[in-house]
């Protein structure tokens, strides 16, 4: 079988590869942003914020190239679905970068405040859950691997649970103003990590769409208990 649109398909593959590069960056940034919080290192937070500028730059470049390909090639079938998925993934990864910036900003404003080891342990735990989610979702994307994509909601459950119980941890922190300020900021960090988990699930939804042509939201699989 010959490919009558090999030039276009090569460009599509390149666009996909660029997206994988962005995903790797985003994944690394999650780890570093949380490390900046846990180790209380504002310099590392600044470095993450600077890296996000690079993600934004690639995001725009991918978007421009996407638009040009769309106008020139008018893709159909699985090419059209891939184009659609690339557009969604590009925006999703860019927003992951933004969440890492949010976490980094929190790391900076809480510098020097009294901390709770319990909360830090749980934030680290969330980061350690979320990073593999991003990697797994992107792997599933590259391989058009539906069964793997379908595992994402399950991976997301402990992240949601940790995020929900963060509220109680904050209350447990006691009445001291400085401790409360720190803990409140940590709730924002947990919230950002929870959002990144959701975004990884969004990526997985795109994998299913790409492979099957059916788009469905995986929905909130998290149970009911433990609100606040």
């Amino acid at each position, binding site marked *: *079988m*010959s490919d*009558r649109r090999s030039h276009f398909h090569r460009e599509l593959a390149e666009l996909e590869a660029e997206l994988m590069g962005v995903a790797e960056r985003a994944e690394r940034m999650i780890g570093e942003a949380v490390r900046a919080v846990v180790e209380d290192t504002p310099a590392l937070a600044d470095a993450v914020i600077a890296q996000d500028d690079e993600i934004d730059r690639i995001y725009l470049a991918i978007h421009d190239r996407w638009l040009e390909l769309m106008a020139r090639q008018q*893709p*159909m*079938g699985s090419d*059209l*679905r891939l184009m659609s998925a690339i557009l969604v993934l590009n925006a999703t990864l860019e927003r992951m970068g933004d969440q890492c910036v949010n976490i980094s900003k929190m790391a900076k404003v809480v510098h020097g405040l009294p901390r709770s080891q319990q909360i830090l342990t749980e934030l680290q735990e969330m980061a350690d859950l979320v990073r593999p989610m991003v990697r797994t979702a992107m792997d599933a994307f590259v391989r058009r691997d539906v069964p793997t994509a379908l595992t994402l909601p399950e991976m997301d459950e402990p992240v949601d649970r940790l995020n929900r119980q963060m509220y109680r941890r904050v209350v447990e922190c006691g009445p001291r103003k400085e401790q409360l300020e720190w803990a409140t900021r940590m709730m924002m960090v947990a919230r950002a990590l929870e959002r990144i988990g959701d975004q990884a699930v969004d990526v997985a939804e795109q994998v299913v769409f790409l492979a099957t*042509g059916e788009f469905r939201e995986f929905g909130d699989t998290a149970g009911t208990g433990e609100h606040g």
Partner: protein
Amino acid sequence: MKTADHTSDQGVIFETKALNVFYGEFRAVRDIDLQVRANEITALIGPSGCGKSTVLRTLNRMNDLIPNARVEGVVRYNGEDLYDPDVDPVEVRRRIGMVFQKPNPFPKTIYENVAFGPRIARLDGDLDVIVEESLRKAALWDEVKDKLHEPALALSGGQQQRLCIARAIATSPDVVLMDEPASALDPIATLRIEELMLELKQDYTIVVVTHNMQQAARVSDRTAFFSVEVGDGGRRTGKLVEFDLTERIFTSPSQKETEDYITGRFG
């Protein structure tokens, strides 16, 4: 062949069952099961030689005019066998009009081109009115109303094609068959024809053969994808691979062959 399940018999105007067309000993298409619904645009797409024109011509018995063409199987039109010996092929072609790839107006005046069919068919009604209405429906009236008695061949290609459409609808058909109606036209004239098709489907059923996938995607409600099966001794026989809502065909077809064709991975 894969046909979508989300279809019902409602509004079916044409139905072919196990349709085979032969030119002499040569089987051009094999076992075509196709349904065309009223007031829809059905597009027939596929590589050259897969039998699109052949299938289209079975829908108004144009194949009768081709020596040694033979049709097997069933073509039902409004539930009735189109090839029943009692059916008058001339009446069939009045109710099922046709527009061809190259605009082919008669070497007569614009008026005479449109008036020809109704006059032959002895249709009731004022001929002037029929001509005006047909030209209006074909979105040509404003451009030709002051030169109705000038030669049709002096019109531009796009205007000539719209004149042919006016001529086809002047006999009040139910269906207009179009075989690559825009392939000889520039992009603007092409878009005018496409717009016109979308207008016309209010009143008519349209079946269009096109090589232009984007055109099929733009105008049609359903798309039939045909391909060629190469058999013993290199015999090439056309077959219907997939028939579904146009949106499905071009975003997520169910057959790999369709997918390969629309993404250019074929051959």
